[in-house]
């Protein structure tokens, strides 16, 4: 039974499950990373994901157009981000707490709309799996990596993209500066609030897509509170990844692969309590970070309100 765990089927299964499970985390965590890199901690990701998931589902259901659904998710995410930015940048609200507020709002609102606009659980025809030309044909590998749906591919492309923006563009330079020393950035005419507005809204947009990836790409249903805490995991993964896109990729994959593994452990009937299996990814994430040697420190201005004196 333990040996079964190392059979080809299982390993392939684990990896492809892991990739799917990682998808929403990638969107949400990368989004959160941009916010934190500019100094804003947003604990409201979960709420943004739920609203994104609903909007995407609703629009896709009514129009039958999936991309419109994604757009809607981005839209609602952007609105949530805008509100968050306004509250944290202009109103200087304590970031952690306001995030919790937005979480509750999104949690309630998504289900309220669900009840009023749809009523009961339905399903949509979500993004189809696309087997990439050539790549998809590669025996084992192809099936795992190159036979997923569009939003999965995009999620993984997002990682290098995020790295590029952060390190190769003037915008990225501003973001890093604002998160490290807003006074300095400000004294050079970089508008701290604009940058933070941008990153927080971007974070919302990506969280929205994260939700969409669940409701119209991976699961093709909407169910109240369907994210079940993934938004908070996403925030945690930003810390795990040390505020770096590649680190976040690593964290998301680790967490998701272990989660897939624990499912197989149960399926193969390894004699341990199901709860023990279920908690494996959480425990391992902490352990890995505990033993890992690289100890990066976060953006100096994280959660700090910026205001010009005088």
């Amino acid at each position, binding site marked *: 039974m333990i040996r079964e765990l190392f059979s080809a089927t299982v390993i392939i299964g684990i990896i492809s499950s892991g990739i799917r499970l990682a998808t929403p985390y990638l969107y949400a965590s990368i989004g959160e990373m941009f916010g934190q890199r500019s100094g804003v901690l947003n*604990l409201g990701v979960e*709420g943004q994901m739920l609203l994104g998931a609903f909007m995407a589902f609703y629009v896709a259901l009514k129009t039958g157009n999936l991309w419109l659904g994604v757009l809607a998710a981005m839209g609602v995410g952007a609105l949530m981000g805008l*509100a968050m930015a306004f*509250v944290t940048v*202009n*109103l*200087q*609200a*304590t970031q*952690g*707490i*306001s995030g*919790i*507020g*937005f*979480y*509750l*709002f*999104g*949690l*309630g*609102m*998504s*289900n*309220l709309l*669900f*009840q*009023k606009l749809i009523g009961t659980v339905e399903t949509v025809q979500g993004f189809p799996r696309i087997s990439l030309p050539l790549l998809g044909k590669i025996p084992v590998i192809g099936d795992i990596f190159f036979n997923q749906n569009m939003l999965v591919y995009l999620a993984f492309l997002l990682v290098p993209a995020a790295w590029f923006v952060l390190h190769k563009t003037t915008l990225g330079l501003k973001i890093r500066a604002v998160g490290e020393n807003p006074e300095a950035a400000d004294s050079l005419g970089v508008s701290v609030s604009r940058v933070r507005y941008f990153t927080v809204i971007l974070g919302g947009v990506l969280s929205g897509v994260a939700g969409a990836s669940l409701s119209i790409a991976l699961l093709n249903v909407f169910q*109240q509170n369907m994210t079940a*805490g993934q938004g*908070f*995991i996403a*925030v*945690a*993964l930003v*810390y*795990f990844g040390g505020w770096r896109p590649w680190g976040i990729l690593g964290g998301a994959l680790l967490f998701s692969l272990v989660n897939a593994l624990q499912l197989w452990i149960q399926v193969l009937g390894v004699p341990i*309590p199901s*709860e*023990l299996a*279920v*908690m494996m990814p*959480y*425990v391992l*994430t*902490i352990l890995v*970070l*505990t*033993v890992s040697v690289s*100890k990066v420190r*976060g953006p100096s201005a994280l959660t700090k309100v910026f205001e010009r004196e005088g």
Partner: protein
Amino acid sequence: MKARLNSIFEALLPVFATVAALLVGGIMLLILKINPLTAYSALIQGAFGSWNAFAETLVKATPLLLVGIGICISYRGNVVNIGGEGQMIMGAILSTWIALTFTNLPGWLMILIGMLAGVVGGSIWGGIPGLLKAYFNVNEILSTVMMNAIAVQIMNYLLRGPMIDPVQAKASSQIPQTARLVEAYRLPRLAPTRLHLGLLIAIILAVMVYILLWRTTLGYRIRAVGQNQPASRYGGIDVKRYIVYALLFSGAFAGLAGAMQVFGVNYRMITDGSATGFTGNAGFNGIVAALFGQLHPLLTIPASVLFGSLLVGANSMQRAVQVPSSLITALNGLVVVFVVSSEVLRKFQQRRRLTVAVDSPPPESGQPKAIEPDGEQP
């Protein structure tokens, strides 16, 4: 000019915000074809309408207060503890286990032991992230989020397995709950309401936390480490240790809150598979309550009552006007956001007061008259 406009606008923002909060809530109600006035009066009724209603509010406020004062400590130590849920659970598990194991101790003694067990359980679950942060540089937001999930699974396992109610173990329904605590072990209640001794304990503790933070060397050190680690080290403070304490104490109070939910409210542990079923989100709401109280232990007392009344009132409003519960959740979210935002108002008020306080002093007399600005460049 533009700057002045900005500042006026900014100064008024919280006012707009608060108004908007009510409006938005009202609008949502109207959309649902519900008269906001009926709804809101039901809310107030439900929270303060009767002695019993108010008691319910206080019952709700008790765990918020306990978690809240814990948050005050961790905040002063500059650590973010969002592990309240898990810490409550672990505190409750430990205290319940002891209470169910030793069933014939004198009540007061077991209540004492039980509360301590809660403290210990919570401290462990808060202390671990503390150690990880201090000695392994593992961010506490990450670890506490994960530890919450772990605690839930531990609870689910124990409540369906080793700790399950013997009755349920036999029954087909297999409800994941422990046996009930014997009568003697229950926190005294103010019959006929559910208001229990816990509130009093919590209030006393709030005062003690105030003293701890501002009247003891321990509190001084926690605050110093929270403010400036290099300076604290130079001040002879073992910085790492006090980082651990900040999270550990914070966890201790959450754990106590968990124990009280068992000894004072439910008399047993029950799980619905998630943390919420047992904690009622107090682990998170306590953070909010603490912030309503400006992260000051004493102000957190009224703040908890306020937030508690909101939660209780909202539920009865849901019953009264039959709005979907999800609207209530959304409303709570809005309230949190608006309250947090309105903080800015106070800041500006303080500015104002200080600035108008000083007036241009009369010209200095001892000024060297000899010198006047020169025109020419040398």
